[in-house]
Each structure stands twice: as C-alpha cells, then as structure tokens.
C-alpha cells in the first residue's frame, strides 16, 4: 500500500489525543469530557452558495462521570484504542472487526464492553467527526458494494485495471478510493451514469450501453457507499465529467440523488469530499410514465411511509427549487411510484434503446 507516513501519524496523534483528554482531566480533577459534533438534521445547514450540506457547530458533551454516559465514554476510548492500533500496524479493517476487537467481558463482572455492533458503529462515526479524520484515514473500510464499468483505467495496489475489459461484471469499487490507494490513469468517457439498482446496471452493462454512449457506468446497489460516491466525485472533479443519476421514482430514489448531489445528513462533514453539486437527476421522473407511455398498472401505490418521507423531502431546504417541488408533488398527487424495472414492461431493452437515448438527446433532467 502506498502511503504518506506523515498523514498517518497525524491521525495517530489525534487518536492519542483522546487519552490525553482523560489524563489531563484526571490531573485537574475534572470530569473527562469529549465534545462530539451533533449528527442530526438539527445541526446541518444547506449552503446555497456551494450547494452542499454542511455540519453546524453544535456539539454534545460525552463525559465519563455521568451514569448515562459512562459506558459510552468507556466504549469510545476503547474504539479509539483499537483504531490507533490499526494506525500503528498499518492495517485496514471493517466495522465488524472493530466491534470484535473491542469486545470483551469487563474484569470482575458479567458485563461485556459491547453487546452488538450497533453500539460500536456510531462510535466510529463520532470519532470521525470529533477528530475531523475521514473513515479512510482511520483505516476503516466498508464492504465493496459497488461496481464500475466503462472506458476507464485505474491502478489499484499497483495492478492496472482496465474497466473496459472486465466483461459484464465490471470492477468492484473498493471502499477506499483516495488517490494514494487508487489512481485514475486514463479516462476517455464523456459522462458518468450512476445507477441506483444493480439489476439496471447489469442491463446497461450487458447491452454495452457504455460503449455506445461512451460513458462510465457506476452502481452502488441502493444507497451508494462512500467508495462509489467518492469515485464519482473524483471522476467529476479530476476528469471534468458530468454525473447523471438514474434512480427509482420514489422518495428514496430522490433522497439517493440528493445524497450524491449535496451530501447526507449523517455524514454532513464528508460533503466537502463526496458531494457533486452539479450532479443531474436523469430519471425516473414522475413525469416519465406519461411521456414514455408507461401504463398505470406497472405503478405501485405509495404507502404511508412513502408519503411521510416525500413530505419530509418537500421541507428540506435543498429541495426548494420550483422544479423539484413540482416533481415531488406530482408523484404525491398521482399516488404512485415506479421502479426502474417497470420499463421492461415496454421492452426488455427499453431502458438502453429508448429511454436513456431520448433523455440524453432531449437533455431531459432535473438539477
């Protein structure tokens, strides 16, 4: 692994800082306290100027000598310890391994330090924001949950990967795609198409859509993981490629698009690095069933959860554009949602042969 040693030590220093907080507080007979930025809707703002969701300044105190927080504090220190161990050994690991590494039964008791992974995961995110260190810098990776195919040549761990010669399956996007791990050596594509669903990505890949339209096909299998988002961002930034997002026509699809474009609420601190404010929403739009002649019977009735989520979206500051308000309201008034797969009702290759070509030709997308 190619790495810059200086940067690693900076993260290590930050992690050791957690121990310093405890030691310093103990010396002054103060309650050891960590100030952790709040990760919720109430502490994010949408920056109109750069089009990003940014984290506010509110922080919550996590102190040791508080019955409600003592355990969490202890766990935070434990996780920091495990992360530091990773730094020193220069290894990367998964969230689950961190959980197993930090789990043990506390001496002279029947209590475990952690009971489930649900307890350790948020602590890692807490440390990310508190120490202003990226997850990749902490050497924690997620599963490879994304694929890419197209005229793109990458170097991963010194291996040359030509994404045009990987058949239908493509290249599995690793969770850490920072330049020191993954280099983009050649890219001749005209744009990036980020598809929500693996099934539709397979359809496009099989039909060699990327060859016909000279584009890079990316999928995140649902909510795109950090690796996929970061790769899209790098292609957008470094190779000046426009990014188009193809999702289902439902509130969750809209939100996936908004996460790609402006960043997520939970990881607002990552927006700077991940978000692509110029990303375009290519479909499926609530107007498409009409303009592409999709019959009403391939729609799915919106359930209560969908409706509630759509209402929430309507209230988000980053969905205030007139076109977006119309888009969401149109879906609500029709009472139906459509999956990308529903396009197969017309023809198996409708997506590749008709839908996308027409969309691209007419430049029919939302910003």
């Amino acid at each position, binding site marked *: 692994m190619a790495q810059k040693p200086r940067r690693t030590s900076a993260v290590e220093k930050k992690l050791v800082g*957690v121990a310093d907080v405890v*030691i310093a507080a103990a010396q002054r007979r103060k309650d050891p306290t960590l100030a952790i930025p709040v990760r919720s809707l109430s502490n994010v703002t949408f920056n109109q100027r750069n089009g990003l969701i940014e984290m506010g300044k509110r922080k919550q105190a996590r102190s040791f000598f508080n019955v409600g927080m003592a*355990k969490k504090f202890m766990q935070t*220190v434990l996780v920091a310890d495990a992360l530091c161990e990773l730094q020193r050994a220069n290894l990367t690991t998964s969230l689950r391994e961190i959980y197993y590494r930090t789990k043990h039964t506390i001496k002279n*008791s029947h209590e*475990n330090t952690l009971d489930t992974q649900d307890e350790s995961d948020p602590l890692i995110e807490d440390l990310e924001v508190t120490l202003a260190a990226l997850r990749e810098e902490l050497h924690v990776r997620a599963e490879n949950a994304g694929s890419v195919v197209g005229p793109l040549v990458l170097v991963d761990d010194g291996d040359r990967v030509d994404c045009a010669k990987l058949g239908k399956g493509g290249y599995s996007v690793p969770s850490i795609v920072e330049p020191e791990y993954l280099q983009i050596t050649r890219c001749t594509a005209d744009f990036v198409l980020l598809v929500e669903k693996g099934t539709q990505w397979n359809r496009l890949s099989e039909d060699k859509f990327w060859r016909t339209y000279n584009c890079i096909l990316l999928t995140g299998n649902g909510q795109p993981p950090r690796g996929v988002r970061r790769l899209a961002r790098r292609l957008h930034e470094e190779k000046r490629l426009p990014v188009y997002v193809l999702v289902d026509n439902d509130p969750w699809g809209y939100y996936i698009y908004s996460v790609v474009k402006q960043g997520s609420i939970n990881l607002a601190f990552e927006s700077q690095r991940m978000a692509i404010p110029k990303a375009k929403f290519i479909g499926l739009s609530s107007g498409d069933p009409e303009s592409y002649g999709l019959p009403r019977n391939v729609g799915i009735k919106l359930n209560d959860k969908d409706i509630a989520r759509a209402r929430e979206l309507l209230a988000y500051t980053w969905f205030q554009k007139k076109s977006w308000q119309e888009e969401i309201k149109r879906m609500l008034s029709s009472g139906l949602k459509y999956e990308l797969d529903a396009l197969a009702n017309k023809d198996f290759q409708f997506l590749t042969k008709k839908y996308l070509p027409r969309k691209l030709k007419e430049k029919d997308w939302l910003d």
Partner: protein
Amino acid sequence: MGISAAGMYGQLTTGKPVQIISRTSARAPAHYFEVQIDTKKNEPQILEKKQIDWESQRGTQVTMEVEGRYQKGRASVDEYIEQTIIANPHARLTYLTPEGETKEHPRTYPQLPPSPREIKPHPYGIELGMLLKMLQDTKSHWLSGFLAGDFSRVSPRLAEDICKAAGLSPRARPRDVHGQAAETLYKTIQSTKIMAPPTNCLSPIGETAILSGLYQQIKGDFYTAASRPPAVYRGNPFVIEAGLAYGRGSEQGQESQEKQAIPLAEGEQQQDDNELARVIRYANRVPLLYQQSACAIFKAVLDTSWRNYGVSQSRGALPSGPMVIFVHMASVWVPFTSESKEAIADYDEIRKEITLALRECGRRLGAFLRRRERADSEHRRRNIFELYIEEVVESCNRLKGGRLPTAKLKEQLQKMALARTGGEKTDELLGKNGSGPEGLPHSIIVTPEGVEGAVPVLIGEAPGGAVSSNGAPAEEEKTAKPSRLTGKTRRRRRGQRGTAGKPTTRAMRRKA
C-alpha cells in the same frame, strides 16, 4: 367433592366401605364403623359398628380405598398435600406415599385456629325452596316465632313487622304457609332491612399463620399476608385472606449468579424467563386444584393491575415473575360454581374483597421491590465507575504506547468516582434501603444477610427434628434450606403439641 362424595366414589370403584375410627377422650372407648351408602335410597348404611382398642387418645381416622391414577405434578395428590400444609400450618401431617416413602410435615404454627361457632341461617341467604322446607320442619308454632327463632339477626319485633308487611298473621302456623303466601313472605324478607349476620362463625387462618405456611413451604425473598375484615354476600358471612411469596430465595439466586459468570455472546440475555405467577386457592382451608380459570379468585388475580406494584403482566394474563399468590375464602357457605366444588362463583361482594386483599399484598410487594430496586441501582451506580475506570485506564495506556503511570491515573479517577457517588453516605443509604421491612406489616424479607420481619417460630417435634420441610415443587423436597437457618433472627424450637399428644411444652430459646 366432600367426604360423602369421596366415600361414594370409593364404594363405586372398589366396593369397599369407608372405615371410621373415632375417640373423644382417653377415658372413652374408641368406636369403629364401616359405612356405605345405599345408592338406591341415598341413605347411609352402617355395616359394622364396634368398640375397639386404639392407640390414639383422641381423634378421628377415616380410611377409604379408591381407584385412581397416582401422578405427580399439577393437580396431583402431592400438590394437594403441599397446599394443604401451607393453609394449615397448625397441623402435623404424615404422608405415606405409594412409593413407600414417609413424609413428615411438622407443625410450624403453635396456635390452633379457634373453632367456629354455629349460627342460624341469615334470612338473606336462603332460597325459597329452603324457606318452604324450614317452614315444614320448624318446631315453632307461630310464624313470628319461627322467623325469630330459626334465623339469625331476626328479633321478635322484626319478625312481627315482616309478617305484617307480608300480609300474614304472626300467629299463623308455619306449616300452613305455602304457595303464594310463602312466596310473598320470601319477597318481603328480601326487601326488609336486616342486620348483617354475626361473623364469629368464621374461622380464618390468620395473617401470621399464612405467613408461616408460605415461609415454610415456598422459597422466596419476600412474603406477606393480609386478611380482610368479615363481609357478607347474600346473607352469608365470609372472610378473604390473601398471601404472597415472591422471589427465588437466596440459594437459587447464588446459583444463577454462578451461571452468569460465563461471558455472554451476542444476542444472549442475562436471564430471560417468562415464568408466570402461580395462584393457589382455598375454600375453608381446603385447596382448590381444578377449574382455575372459572374461579372468582383467579379472575380477581387477573384483574388486579400488578404493574402498579412493579410486577410485569401481559394483558389478560397472570403477572409474571417468581411469585405464588395465595387466596383463602372462609365462609359458612362457599358458593361453588358446581357440585364438584372446584371453583368459587363470582359474586360482586366476594370479588371485591379478594381484589382488596390482593391489592394490599401488591402494595407491600411494590414497596419491597422499589426498595430493593433503589438499593440495586445505587449499588450499580457505584459499580459502573469502578468497572469502567479499569477499562478506560487500560485503553489510555495502550493509546499512549504503554508509557502511562496507570496506577496514578486510576487512583485519580477512583477518587473522583467516590466523590461523585456520595462515598460513605451511599453506603449508609444502601444499608438502610436494603433491609428492614419497616412499614410493611405481616411481611418477611429474606436477604443474603438474613431474615427480617415477622419470622415465624420453627417448631420441631424433636431437637433437630427430622424435618423434611419440603420446598414448593415436589422435586425440591430433599433440598434443605440452610440459608434460612443462618438468619440473624432468633428462632424458637418447641416440643410439638399434637392433637392427641401429651401437652409437654418445652420451650427453648436458641440463637441460630
């Protein structure tokens, strides 16, 4: 079923008569009878009657042979006997099992219950048919005399008033009152205001005796008992008594703690038991084993909101937890739902009394649980910091590359922890909260340190008495209860005074 039905059943299944030996005093001879029932005429038949020599000076012995299946577990002979002991701690029971074992259950309560007094029926409590029969059978010559003489709480004046109100002559011959006149009389009686019947005819078990019975038979951490004042339904006086035993007892607690020492894996829980409470029901000291759900007692237990007392309870279900609920109804006439005498009928007055008694027990249990909870949480609060300091210090040490003066950091943190959890004040609070059933009348609390409260005196026949004091379920019979004896309370042992034994009361105080 009652003794006559039991004898009948024996006669039908084995053809053998009931054998009875009875003796009233040491000076009188013992009588031996063999009795059968003439099933055609529904009359008793005495097959044999003689005077015999008998080793007991006083008492009655009934022997009958019946056919049946001997089983263990629910609704078994063993359960019946176990429950009988709880409600009759004044009695000594010897049980010769079919397996050839001899189980001795000594007395655990020194006082005999007072014998009930006989009373005349209360006018509210009789049916029309009964009234007609009484009119026929009475020895009185006048109607008013019949009313005043054959019923309780009817004065001669009231009797005349009733007659007048019913439009009958007080001088009428009781035998001549029948048909329409009797019905009018019956209705008039029901609408006349008559004083409630006397209650000295009842023989309740008493709170201390119930407490003693529960404490001796059931393992637990907390016991309580509550008696209601006498009440009346349809002219029949009755008393409701309730008791409660909660917890697993200290021995089982220790066992489960040892079990927990194994580190828990993901998804495993500390202890997930959904054990439901057990209800034991009695009518006049006799356990009711069948038809639980048809019984007013069971319904009252279900309708009590146990959640108010810190016990969890699903909708329409028994409360859950290691708990035994004891309810006894003493009455001159227990209204059973059927002739088999398995369940008590649901009268509003009875239901109300049961509910009130259960609530009283529940309140005390709630107080006990809250107190224990408070002590526990205080204890936990202290432990939390103690436990986590170790972890935090170790982690910090590793973060600092093992170059940390750990002892110093640990000491600093521990000092702070002590200051924050109140130090000695907490200790005091703990001691105070964890003990003493103050404010909880007729209750016993068992803690690992000892037993507190109205602990009953233990009576053994011989010193060290071959006490096979059996635990609640039959399987636990052989387990001794050493923790009980190591209490800080004093216990007295006494020579037992059996029903026919010599009244040698040898009191001996000893510190256990």
